[in-house]
C-alpha cells in the first residue's frame, strides 16, 4: 500500500532570503506584546487575581443576561461580568442557556471571598443549575502567579542547559531566543484579544515551549549533521539546506499536532477553550520561529564548524553521492 500523497523532491526554498523580514516581524510582535502587556495588561482569570467564577445553566430556556446582571449588581460586589456560551452537552442549546459569571475579588481577604458564591446563588434565585463554582482567594492567586512565572523561567532555563549540553552554546542561544519569542507572542495573543489568561493557559504556554524547542532541535540536529558532511559549504546555504531537508517533517508534524488541537478546540468544551487557542497559536508560531528565527540566528552567532566537524563520529560519514566535492 503506497501513500496517496508523496513529497518526492527536497524543496529548494531560500528561507534565508526572508529571515530579515522574519526578524523584523517578530521584533514588532514582541514589542507590541510588551507594550500592550504593560498598558492594557492581561485579562487574568480568577486563578491569578482571585475572585469568583460561576458557570450556571438556566433550566427553563435561554439565559436573560440583563436580568441576571441587575440581580447581581444589587449585591454591590463590584462589576459582574456575564457571558453566555454554547458548548457540547447540556449547554448546546441556542440561544444559549449557559452563562459564565465572573465576580471580582472582594475586599476583606479570604473570608469575604468565600461568601460571594452563596450570595450570588441567593440573589439569582431558583431555576438555575450551578455547573461549576470556583473561588480563589487573593493569597492563592498571587502564589499561582509566582509559581507560573517560576515554572516558565525554569523550563526555559532547563531546556537551554540541555541544548547547551547536547550542542554548542550558539545553538542554545538561538533556541532560547526562539522559544522566548514563542512564549512572548502567545502571551501577546491573549493580551491583544483580552482572552482570559488562566492556569490552563499557562500549561499551554509551557507545552508550547516544549513543542517549539522540539521543532528547533530537529532542525539544529540536521544543521549539525550537515556541518560535518559539507565542511566547505557557505553557512547561508547550509542553513537553507537543513531547513529544506527537514521541511516535509516540519509540515507533517505541525499538521498532526494541529489536527489534534483543532479537535480539542471544536469538541473540547468551554473549559479547554483557552488551552486549545493558546496551543493552536503556539504550534503555528513555534514552527514559524524554528524556520525564520532559530535557524537564521545561527548565521549571526556561528558555531565553530571545525570543532563540530571534529566531534562527528565516523558513522555519520556521508554516502558517496552526497559528497560536496
Amino acid at each position, binding site marked *: *500500500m503506497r*501513500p*496517496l500523497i508523496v513529497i518526492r523532491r*527536497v524543496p529548494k526554498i531560500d528561507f534565508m532570503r526572508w529571515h530579515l523580514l522574519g526578524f523584523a516581524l517578530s521584533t514588532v510582535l514582541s514589542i507590541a506584546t510588551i507594550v500592550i502587556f504593560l498598558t492594557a495588561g492581561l485579562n487574568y482569570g480568577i486563578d491569578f487575581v482571585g475572585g469568583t467564577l460561576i458557570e450556571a445553566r438556566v433550566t427553563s430556556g435561554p439565559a436573560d443576561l440583563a436580568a441576571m446582571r441587575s440581580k447581581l449588581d444589587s449585591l454591590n460586589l463590584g462589576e459582574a461580568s456575564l457571558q453566555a456560551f454554547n*458548548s*457540547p*452537552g*447540556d449547554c448546546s442549546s441556542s440561544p444559549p442557556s449557559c452563562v459564565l459569571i465572573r465576580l471580582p475579588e472582594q475586599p476583606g*481577604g*479570604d*473570608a469575604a471571598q*468565600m461568601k460571594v*458564591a*452563596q450570595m450570588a446563588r441567593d440573589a439569582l434565585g431558583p431555576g438555575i*443549575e*450551578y455547573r*461549576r463554582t470556583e*473561588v*480563589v*482567594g487573593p493569597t*492563592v492567586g498571587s502564589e*499561582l502567579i509566582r509559581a507560573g512565572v*517560576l*515554572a516558565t523561567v*525554569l*523550563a526555559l532555563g*532547563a*531546556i537551554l542547559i*540541555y*541544548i547547551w549540553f547536547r550542542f554548542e552554546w550558539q545553538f542554545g542561544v538561538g533556541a532560547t531566543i526562539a522559544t522566548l519569542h514563542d512564549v512572548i507572542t502567545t502571551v501577546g495573543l491573549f493580551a491583544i484579544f483580552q482572552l482570559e489568561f488562566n492556569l*490552563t493557559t*499557562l*500549561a499551554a504556554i*509551557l*507545552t508550547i515551549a*516544549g513543542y517549539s524547542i*522540539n521543532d528547533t*532541535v*530537529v532542525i539544529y*540536529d*540536521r544543521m549539525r549533521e550537515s556541518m560535518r558532511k559539507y565542511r566547505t559549504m557557505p553557512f547561508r546555504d547550509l542553513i537553507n539546506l537543513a531547513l529544506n531537508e*527537514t521541511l*516535509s*517533517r516540519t509540515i*507533517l*508534524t505541525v*499538521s*498532526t499536532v*494541529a*489536527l*489534534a488541537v483543532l*479537535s480539542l478546540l*471544536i469538541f*473540547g*468544551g468551554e*473549559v*479547554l477553550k483557552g488551552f486549545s487557542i493558546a*496551543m493552536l497559536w503556539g504550534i503555528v508560531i513555534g514552527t514559524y520561529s524554528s524556520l525564520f528565527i532559530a535557524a537564521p540566528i545561527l548565521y549571526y552567532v556561528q558555531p565553530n564548524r571545525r570543532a563540530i566537524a571534529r566531534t562527528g563520529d565516523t558513522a555519520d560519514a556521508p*554516502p558517496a*553521492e552526497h559528497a560536496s566535492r
Partner: protein
Amino acid sequence: MLYFANWKVLLISGVCLLGVLLSALNLLTPAQLAYLPGFMRKQVTLGLDLRGGSYLLLQVDVAAAQRERLNTIVDSVRNTLRDAHIGYTGLNVEGDALTFTIRETDRLEEAKRDLAKIDPDLTVEIAPDGTGTMKFSAVATETRRRQAVEQSIEIIRRRIDETGTKEPTIQREGQDRILVQLPGVDNPEHVKALLGRTAKLTFQLVDQSVTVEDARRGRLPPGDEILPSADEGRGRGSGGAAYVVRKRVMVGGDTLTDAQATFQNNEPVVSFKFDSVGGKKFGDATRENVGKPFAIVLDNKVISAPVIREPILGGSGIISGSFTVQSASDLALLLRAGALPAPIEIKEERTVGAQLGADSIHAGAVASIVGVILVVIFMVLFYGLFGIFADVALLFNLCLMLGALSLLGATLTLPGIAGIALTMGMAVDANVLIYERIKEELRGGRSMLSSLEAGFTRAFGTILDSHVTTLVAGILLYWLGSGPVKGFAVTLSIGVLTSLFSAILVTRLQIVTWLRRLKPKAIPL
C-alpha cells in the same frame, strides 16, 4: 535491522499486551471489578472536574493560635512578676512576641529566671534597660505548627465523616495547608460553614460584681473578660448583648464524650455528656456556685448563661439557646468531632457539578477520538502501509498511556484528557522523523535495508532530544502546577515516555515482521 532477538519480541509484545489489558480494565463497572483479584483492581481515578465534587484548600492559621496562647501567658507573666514583687510596665502582646519593661533594672536576672519557668517553649530576653520580650522558640513554633496541622486534619476528617460525605480525601499540602476533596458534593456551603468554625466550647462563670457598661468603661476586674452574646444581631437574646465572665475555665469542651441534638419544650437543644474527669469538675464547680449564672461559651461567644439551680452531678447537661434544628445538629456534630487547634481559613474553592463533569468526560472523549481518527487518516494518506504501522503503534500508545495511568493510580482530569489528545498528535512525530529519514536515505541511493537501518538509528538522537525537552516542560508543570494542571502534566509526561517506546520499538517490530514475512522488493514510501 532484520534481526530482532526473540526475547525482545516477547518483551515488546508483552508490554503492549499488558497495556491493552490494563486499559481494558477501565471498561469494567465497579461491580465487575470486584470479582477480580486485588492486584487487578486498577482503574484510572477521575478527577473532581470529571466526576463532580468539591475541592477546598484550607489554611491553618497557626499564628492566630500562637497569639491566643501568648494572650493566656500574659496572666501568668503578670502573676509571676507580682508574686516576686518585681515592678513592670507595658505588658503587651505585639505580633508574635510578648513585650514588657522591668522597672527595677537591678533585678533583671531574677525576673528572667522566674519568667523562664512559665513555659519551656518560650525564650525570654531582657535588655539592660529593662525592656523584655518573650517569644516561642523556632523549634517550638515548628512543632506546634506540625501538631496543629495534623490535629486539624484529624478533626476535619471527623467533621466531614459526620456529614456523610463518601470517600473524602483530606491531605496536607505544603507547610500549613490542608487540601480537602469531596467527590459528589456540588454545594459545599454546609461543609464550608462546618469547617470555618473552631468550635471551642468552654463553661465559664459570669462575674456579677460589675455591669457590662462599667466593665466597658474600663473597670474590668482582673481575670475577667467581656464576651459578646451569640444572639447579638438575631435580636432574640434576653440577657443583653454581652457578658462579663471569668477567664478561668470551669470545664472545657475537650472533656465531652458525646453531644446530640434533641428537643426540650419543643425547642431544639444540644445535650452533652462529660467524661469522668469533666463530669467531676463540672459537678464541683456547680456545687460551689449554686444560684450564680455560668456562661456556655462557643468560639468566644456566649451561647447562653443559665443560673445554676442545683449542683449538676450526673455528668451530662443541655445547652439551650436560640437554635434552629439545623444549627443544633451542627453544634452537636462540631462538639462530637472536637475543636480545631487553630482557626481555619478557606483559601480556594472549586466545585464542579456532576452534570458538567459528565459533559466534560463526553467532550474530552469526543475530542480525543476525533483527534486520533484524523491523525490516523493523515498518516495513511502520507505514508501508506508505513502509516498503518505508525497508526497501530499509536493505538498501542493510547492503551499504554491509559494502562500506565491506571497502574500508577493517577488522577485523570479534563486538562489530562487534553494532554492525551495532544500526545496523540505529537507521538507520530517520531514516526514522521524516522520515515522522512528513510525516504531521504532511499533518495540518496542507499539500499532498502540500509535505508531502513539508517532511518531508525539516525532519527533516534533527534527523537530523544525532542522528547527530553517536552518531558522537561511536563515535569516542571507537575512540580509547580496545581490541581487539574497536574493532571495535564502527568498525561503529557507519561505520553512522552510511552510514545518513545511505541513509535520506535513497536513500529520497528512491525516493519521487521513485514520484511521477513512478505520479502518486499521496495519500500512503499
